[in-house]
């Protein structure tokens, strides 16, 4: 593995080497996928909703700069301060600047994939500010000093025994405790203290409304609301693509989001923020970090419609069996595999290949992103720009030569049927043949399909 290049097959192999855990992980996600299916089936106009959501997002993306300006105007009129950040570094500096100006020591943060993407926590910690993630799953991974492995279920890869150990060490719970209710209660007590002490709250944004200048944050735990209703300072960080034109569009998205994510009819809290609280301050940071380039690409701009429901992760046979960490990117799974290479094709070249092209992600996506087609497009682009490893490149080139010439294809088929059964194992199953790692070749038929067909149909 080259340094700095992510190698999904390698990481996935590590994950499945613990076969029991891999099966457990697979099952946990399939359970969520089942709940999503039941929720989707309970809404007769599900497909109509998906299509409407797709159209709203396509429209919003086609007028993105106008809507961003409108949003800024309206939000400012309501008393919020809007900031623009070109990249992660600028985002982090803006957030730090606001905190510093406010004399903030302690921050509570609710789930935001954007701040993960920007690595905000380590940045603030370096500057002496304490950041506490308050979503239970996020808090668990924060205490274990690892990144989330899923965009909706950050600790889906961790077993309750491990949570018990972690809480025993950090929160002083009883040794050996594994009861989720007991552990959740301990986290509630621990985080209540942090909420009470915090000088500022940071949240992500699920939807920002151009027409009104407000935004919506969805959670189940109530951590976002508690975090920004006690201290006077609220900072909301959002990617540019979160803009929707009208408040009424939320009717469509809120019907889809939680049902797709966890099978709930709606999240427990869907909070609408318009301007700061009386006596408080509200800052909104709009972040580009590669999004404008994506918006300009006709091939890939649809990936910006993603509402981060996680359904494509839960359904993906590769994600379920390789775990979120194997992707080594803030957003893993199918959608992550099309977002990551747009940011760094060199580093993430292996991700679009972590896919069987089964198409299940595309079927469940609430905004109808053609995810598996995008993955295929990425493969082509990565091949064209020379980002494939040499084994894949040469085998593809060879296949191209053979498949492009009928006579050669027939000859090669015949030769294989005769030669392959005679070859010793080490020539067939070796590190060059990734396909053969967990698979055996079928016995070779004596005649090709073409020959058999001709014989049966008397020609």
């Amino acid at each position, binding site marked *: 593995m080259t340094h700095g290049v992510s190698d999904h097959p390698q990481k996935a192999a590590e994950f499945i080497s613990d076969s029991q855990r891999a099966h457990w992980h697979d099952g946990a996600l399939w359970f969520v996928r089942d709940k999503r299916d039941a929720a989707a089936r309970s*809404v*007769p*106009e599900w497909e109509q909703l998906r299509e*409407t959501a797709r*159209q*709203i997002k*396509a*429209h919003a*993306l086609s*007028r993105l*700069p106008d809507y961003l*300006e409108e949003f800024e105007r309206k939000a400012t009129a309501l*008393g919020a301060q809007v900031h*623009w950040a070109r990249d992660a570094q*600028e985002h982090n500096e803006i957030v730090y600047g606001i905190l510093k100006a406010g004399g903030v020591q302690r921050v509570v943060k609710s789930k935001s994939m954007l701040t993960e993407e920007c690595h905000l926590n380590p940045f603030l910690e370096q500057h002496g500010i304490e950041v506490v993630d308050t979503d*239970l*799953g996020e808090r668990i991974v924060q205490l274990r000093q690892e990144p989330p492995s899923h965009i909706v*279920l950050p600790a889906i890869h961790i*077993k*309750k025994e491990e*949570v018990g150990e972690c809480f025993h060490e950090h929160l002083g719970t009883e040794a050996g405790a594994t009861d*989720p*209710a007991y552990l*959740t209660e301990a986290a*509630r007590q621990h985080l209540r203290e942090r*909420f*009470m002490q915090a000088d500022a709250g940071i949240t992500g944004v699920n939807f920002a409304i151009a027409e*009104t200048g*407000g935004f919506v944050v969805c959670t*189940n*735990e*109530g*951590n976002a*609301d*508690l975090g920004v*209703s*006690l201290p006077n300072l609220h900072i909301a960080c959002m990617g*540019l693509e979160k803009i929707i*034109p009208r*408040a*009424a569009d939320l*009717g*469509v998205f809120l*019907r889809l989001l939680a049902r797709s994510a*966890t099978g*709930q*009819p*709606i*999240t*427990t*809290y*869907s*909070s*609408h923020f*318009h*301007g*700061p609280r*009386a006596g408080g301050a509200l800052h909104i940071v709009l972040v*580009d970090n590669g999004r404008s380039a994506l918006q*300009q690409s006709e091939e890939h701009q649809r990936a910006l419609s993603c509402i981060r429901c996680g359904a494509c992760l839960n359904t993906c046979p590769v994600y379920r069996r390789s775990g979120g960490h194997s992707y080594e990117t803030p957003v893993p799974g199918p959608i992550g595999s099309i977002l990551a290479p747009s940011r760094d094709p060199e580093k993430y070249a292996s991700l679009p290949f972590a896919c069987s092209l089964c198409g299940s992600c595309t079927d469940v996506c609430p905004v109808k992103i053609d995810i598996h087609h995008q993955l295929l497009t990425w493969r082509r682009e990565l091949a064209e720009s020379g980002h494939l490893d040499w084994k894949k490149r040469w085998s593809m080139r060879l296949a191209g030569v053979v498949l492009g010439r009928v006579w050669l294809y027939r000859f090669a088929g015949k030769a294989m049927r005769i030669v392959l059964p005679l070859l010793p194992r080490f020539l067939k199953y070796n590190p060059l043949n990734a396909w053969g790692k967990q698979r055996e070749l079928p016995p070779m038929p004596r005649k090709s399909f073409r020959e058999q067909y001709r014989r049966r149909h008397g020609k």
Partner: protein
Amino acid sequence: MESKQTILQALRFKRLDEQPAPSLQQNWVATPNAIATFEKMVAAVGGNCIRVRNMQDGLAKLPELPCYADAKKVCSLVEGVEKANVFLDDIADPHDLEDVDVAIVRGEFGVAENGAVWLTDRGVKHRVIYFIPQHIIVLLDADQIVHNMHQAYERVGFEQAGFGVFLSGPSKTADIEQSLVIGAHGARSLHVLLLENGGA
């Protein structure tokens, strides 16, 4: 300022063909009986919906609810609650609401398809009252239940600064091995008292 111009320029470098915005006036399915569906959905999301005749009966019902009966600190946004002893308007710092056991609040309307109630900070000095108490009791007029979220957004306006939340059930998490636990950071229980004859 400079970053804003850079970003907008990048987004406008190549003009994208405008895609039409879809109409939201579509034939969305209505539930056959909004009130019954709402009751069912409140239960499905972990809450408890109780029908009472009117406000007076609703208030009379309170002592039967353990979260009210056992409460020491009661904050009510509704007139006439006997045990009320925390008054939002007298409180300067929202942190002082930390030990409120139960809050009794008024819902503007409910949504049948997901059991959510719409709560706002209009006339409510500290919005944290919806999140910080151990338990929440919402009083809601039964004739204020809409079928779905499309109808819900026809009712809400965001012309002025303010806060509003769709609250659907008590606070919950399933972050430890997908086991549902009620009472994450917000309310541990949610009761909706449905007033059949409206606020009369």
